[in-house]
């Protein structure tokens, strides 16, 4: 009997919700389903997917990172300033710098959470403001502008790798998907990555099992920071013009995407592929809403919240239904359990 794993089941439910949302908007908005929509969403998902992936790593360990948006903003600015100062910098070095800056911020968060024992929501709430203020200070109110960036960087997000009809697969999107898959493989295939799940699943047991819980949490924050740093570089490449508000609000978007993607907010369960689909869903809803005449500007945020809420609820209900079906089927298929004899 082929058995669908719970993880696959969750992704299936999510894809169903995604299709439902798409179908709903297709019925509401003229000229909606076309290649252009894919191009639009894929381009902006490239950034959100990375931070959703970062947030997932942290949430898996029963923590949360509210400073990711500030890290994206700072890295976007920092790498922008760097490449402005050193225009001939090798792309790989620039990417390395982005990872490094982000990982540095993650290290601060991780040390405070794991070793000082301060709850992550407090730590990152504070560092969100601190990192952002540091950016204000560092930037000296100057913006990074597109023309100071090297051409390869500006061209990167929209570089068309291949196309199927009008559906374009652009470099940033493809790169983000590749990174997400890479992280996914690492999480599922690398043995040390299991520690993330173990720590989030049962911290006490992890300690007892001899896992270094603090180092695991630290690693999660550092990795999340590095991914957010990379997202910052993507942000720089895409928008070119970087002010101190860059990446504002991304922390909440990343949480929404991760939770929609089936990452358990209480830690221990979830996949980054789920978070990727969650990011697509958030973006789809957002992009569709701004094209929907029925919803006025002032209600858009509320409707967005409502739709995310109903998507999460719908997903949870669907999940429960599918699970019950599976249990029924298992029961029907399984032999009657043998009763113990004393």
């Amino acid at each position, binding site marked *: 009997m082929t058995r669908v794993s*719970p993880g696959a089941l969750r992704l299936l439910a999510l894809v169903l919700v995604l299709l439902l949302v798409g179908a709903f908007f297709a019925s509401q908005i003229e000229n909606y389903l076309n290649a252009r929509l894919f191009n639009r969403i894929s381009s902006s998902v490239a950034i959100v997917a990375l931070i959703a992936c970062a947030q997932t790593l942290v949430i898996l360990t029963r923590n949360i990172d509210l400073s990711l948006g500030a890290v994206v903003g700072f890295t976007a600015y920092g790498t922008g300033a760097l490449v402005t100062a050193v225009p001939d910098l090798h792309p790989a070095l620039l990417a390395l710098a982005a990872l490094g800056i982000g990982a540095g911020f993650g290290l601060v968060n991780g040390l405070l959470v794991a070793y000082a024992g301060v709850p992550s929501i407090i730590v990152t709430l504070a560092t969100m403001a601190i990192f952002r203020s540091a950016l204000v200070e560092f930037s000296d109110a100057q913006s990074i502008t597109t023309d100071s960036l090297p051409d390869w960087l500006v061209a990167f997000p929209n570089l068309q790798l291949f196309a199927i009809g009008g559906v374009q697969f652009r470099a940033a999107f493809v790169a983000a998907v590749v990174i997400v898959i890479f992280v996914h493989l690492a999480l*599922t*295939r*690398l*043995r*040390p990555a*299991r*520690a993330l*799940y*173990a720590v*989030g*699943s*049962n911290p*006490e*047991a*992890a*300690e*007892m*099992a*001899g*896992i*270094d819980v603090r180092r695991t949490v630290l690693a999660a924050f550092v990795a999340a920071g590095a991914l957010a740093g990379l997202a910052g570089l993507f942000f720089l490449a895409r928008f070119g013009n970087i002010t101190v508000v860059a990446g504002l609000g991304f922390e909440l978007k990343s949480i929404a995407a991760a939770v929609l993607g089936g990452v*358990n907010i209480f830690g*221990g*369960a979830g996949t980054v592929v789920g978070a990727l689909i969650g990011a697509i869903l958030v973006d789809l809803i957002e992009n569709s809403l701004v094209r929907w005449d029925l919803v006025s500007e002032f209600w858009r945020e509320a409707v967005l919240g409502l739709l995310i809420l109903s998507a999460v609820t719908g997903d949870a209900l669907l999940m429960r239904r599918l699970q019950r079906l599976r249990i029924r089927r298992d029961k029907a298929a399984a032999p009657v359990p043998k*009763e*113990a*004899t*004393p």
Partner: protein
Amino acid sequence: MAAPVLALRDVSKSFGATRALSGMTLELWPGEVHAVVGENGAGKSTMIKIMTGVHAPSTGGVEVDGRPVTLSGPREARAKGVSAIYQEPMVFPDLDVAENIFISATDLGLVQRRGLLRERARELIARIGMSLDPDRVASGLTLAEQQAVEIARALSQDVRVLIMDEPTASLSAHEAGELRRIARGLAAEGVAVVYISHRLEEIFEVAHRVTVIRDGSHISTRPIAEVTPERMIAEMVGREVGNYFRKDESHATPEVLLSVRGLGVEDAFEGVSFDIHRGEVLCLAGLIGARRTDVALSLFGIRPATAGRVLWKGQEVRIGSPRAAMALGIAYVSEDRRKLGLALPLSIRSNVTLATLGKVLTRWGLMRERAERAVTQGYRERLNIRMADADTPVGKLSGGNQQKVMLAKWLETNPQLLIFDEPTRGIDVGAKAEVHDLIRQFVRQGGAALVISSDLPEVLALGDRILVMREGRQMGVIPHEAATQEGVMRLATGQDRDAA
């Protein structure tokens, strides 16, 4: 064998002003099952924590193979071959069996090879004589299976000393037997097994030697053949225990308080029928999986019945919520003190008045602290709750005292029917007797009690009648006079069925 594999030498441990262990000495030799018994609060947990490196001794030392060592934490203890499994297993609910077993393995390479993992998991599980699918997710495992996973995990790390802390407290009789067999098997392989249990009868079945501790001190260590249960209990409590196994006469009156006919909850149990009289104790016996707790949950309105009729004092009622149950006068003292029973971080007095806040409120909706204290003090005396003061968080009390606080909470609702779910699980002999006394006192004063217990001596000691269930079905009702452990077990295991 020149030296014990693990030894405590004159170990003392203090927490602030409290002395948890004083001058404890214990030697563990390869190949033995070494039982450690003592009342709750005797220092067993502290001793385990020192052996597993969670705590460092205040004075004295730990030796491995005769050499003094400092254990910095569970990780180092594991590296030296010392592992522990607990009453509540430490598994990762989101990971599968194989991953759980090898979570901290270091010799399996960086990349996870499913095939290898699965195969080695199977080997280990087979080694302890169980069969478990390595791909199953741990959250779906029974307690016994989770413990098996933990034992397999310890084995995967070349365990030399395995500490089992109350491993059978939550297991059915059959499962407990399996576990004892595993313990003996591991000892036969040369592992030193420390076996901690409140079930004296199983200690006689499993242990080679037994150590009694009391008030943080070592009392005795003897080969099992030289010990009797009476002597062991006397040493544990330091006094004669009166009526633990004695059943006093029934106080049942002819008045039927609750009557249940053909009660059922979908996917849980069906066809349960019984009467409870005022002054009566009805025990629900059965193995784990008999769905006895589901009966209690449905009578308390947490999982309302989907079939059958419930009559309260002759009136047909529907119990759709705990609120409805409480309004009738039904209270439920749950099995899981942590999850359903107590708010552990809250103070004792807040817990006592949790279900009856209305009574200690002023007209303006404010708490009357003095009233709350008075109520708490009353129960402290009546139930003999040992506590520093009423503001201590409940989480700091011993299991027996927690149980009493929970009982106080429900007695405060002035119930007529008290449902007890495993009221004495994990609490020591002395406290057990006290809880039994309280239940008897309650029914003597005109209440009725429904007691779910997996402890057969307890069932026989308490029950005026014993209802036995098996896999969601009522197997029969035995009056106290006709009840024997064997008779109950035969029904519970389905070898026999009551003619009635």
